[in-house]
């Protein structure tokens, strides 16, 4: 799977900015900066991982800047970032 740099989301309260870049080492690496990291950091990483691997992305460097987004928002932003990074339109089907 070919990946180019891409991003989706904003830094507004209640949103999350997800930036995807080609992997420097094998695997999916998530660097998370969140206003609710203590309480929800693990959950946020889990949702991003599940969304991206579910779409077939197993190798990427992901930078996530979270401002308290809900899971549905995180999934939507991760999916959009995936589409932009791969050019594969998952919504077309």
């Amino acid at each position: 799977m070919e990946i180019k740099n891409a991003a989706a989301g904003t830094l507004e309260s209640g949103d999350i900015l997800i930036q995807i870049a080609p992997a420097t080492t094998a695997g999916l690496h998530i660097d998370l900066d969140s206003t609710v990291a203590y309480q929800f950091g693990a959950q946020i990483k889990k949702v991003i991982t599940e969304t991206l691997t579910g779409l077939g992305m197993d190798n990427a460097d992901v930078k996530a800047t979270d401002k308290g987004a809900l899971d549905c928002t995180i999934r939507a932003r991760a999916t959009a970032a995936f589409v932009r990074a791969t050019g594969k339109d998952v919504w077309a089907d």
Partner: protein
Amino acid sequence: MNSIKDRAALIAEAAARMNKDTFKGTQPKVTTARTELQHQSAKVVTLEDAIRKTGLKDGMTISFHHHFRGGDKVINLVVAKLAEMGFKNLHLASSSLIDVHEPLIEHIRNGVITKISTSGLRGKLANEISHGLMEEPVIFRSHGGRGSAIANGDLHIDVAFLGASSCDPMGNACGFSRSENAKSICGSLGYALPDAQYADKVVILTDDLVAYPNTPNAISERNVDYVVVVDSVGDSSKISSGAIRDTKNPRDILLAQQAAKVIINSGYFKQGFSIQTGSGGASLAAVKFIRQSMIDQGITASFALGGITAHMVKMHEEGLIERLIDVQSFDKVAAESLKNDPMHKEVSANEYASYDEPGSATHNLDIVILSALEVDVNFNVNVLVGSDGIIRGAIGGHPDTAADSALSIIVCPLLRGRIPCVVDEVTTHITPGSTVDVVVTEYGIAVNPARPELKERLAKAGLKIVDINALKDRAKSIIGEAAPLPFGDKVVGIVMNRDGSVMDVIKNITE
């Protein structure tokens, strides 16, 4: 004969019996034109001299007010001077502290300030203290609780440093100025009045020294020892910063509309009712929505209390609110109104919300609308510590007004981002659930089971009444389960109840 000479022996005898001296004559009469004297007095000194003359010593308690809110310049100025003069171990007792007081961090590190009493903490100072900056825990009190504590001696103030927008050389001071040299305005000095009355020594700092008599005055010369002229006591344009916002947020507007419906259908919305709003966006906006109902139903309020806002002033000027009782002016419009309108009355924190005084205004209050960081299923409210465990608010008059009013309404969204506002148990207990009657969220209105008659009235009016547990479950279903906060074992804050008892403690956060 009965001349004064003849009576000399009797005068001496009467004096001896009363243990008094006999009259020895007067001081020479001062014949200077009083227009000259009215501009000067021995009380007017430099800040350094004022500090020396008060006899302030290491370990003593100094106090301040926060009426300039985000624009306050007095606290940083005075504490920097105290640090320069080499004072240590001071107890800083301010009516509140906000973001602008961040320089205190250095003074705490350097041992100038080793103890703090306040209503709230915000910004970097709050963050540092939450992480364990201080050895001694910060003592938090409500505004009414602070007034009581100062009056009954729980909080003894050695020297009060009080900023005022005008002051004459004798010490008659106000939160506004009637002179053409006026530099600042904060309106009510309500939180400074207990300090002025009970502190051992009182220093007024002013940026407009006016001629005697600076009447009508908030603080009387009787209570003032020294007057210090400074460049600026505060930036008035920053008064309505900090917690106070005029909301354009559609969710806040929805909440405000719901709160207004609760008020109108509560049974307390009748001729002569009284009302107070807290500083949150939604609670301030609720006032706008009850205004139309007051006009439609021909109802006027006897008084509005508390933090007075431009909305309240407008309704007063329209004849909808007869009187304004003002412990703190929340914006410049309110401050100007206090200056110009005799029906807009300045009150001390004690007259506003003291637990001990049956005549304090909160005891005569029908309705209060308040905000919250968190409410729990037992209706307890937290307005001080964020859901991340970091101090980020102020107690204010929250517990005072909730307890004393006939109807207390908490307005808060179900979620703020991913942070739930309706929870199993609040992070820190500030306002007891037994004093909270209604919780308004965008997902429905919960009524305290102790108020079944209220629940019935609101349900009959067609409002969506829900169980508070259902709200909590709803929040949890959206956000998922939160991991526990990384609290340490050190107590960084103590929350006093307004009756003087210890309500809760705040532990440090380790990450």
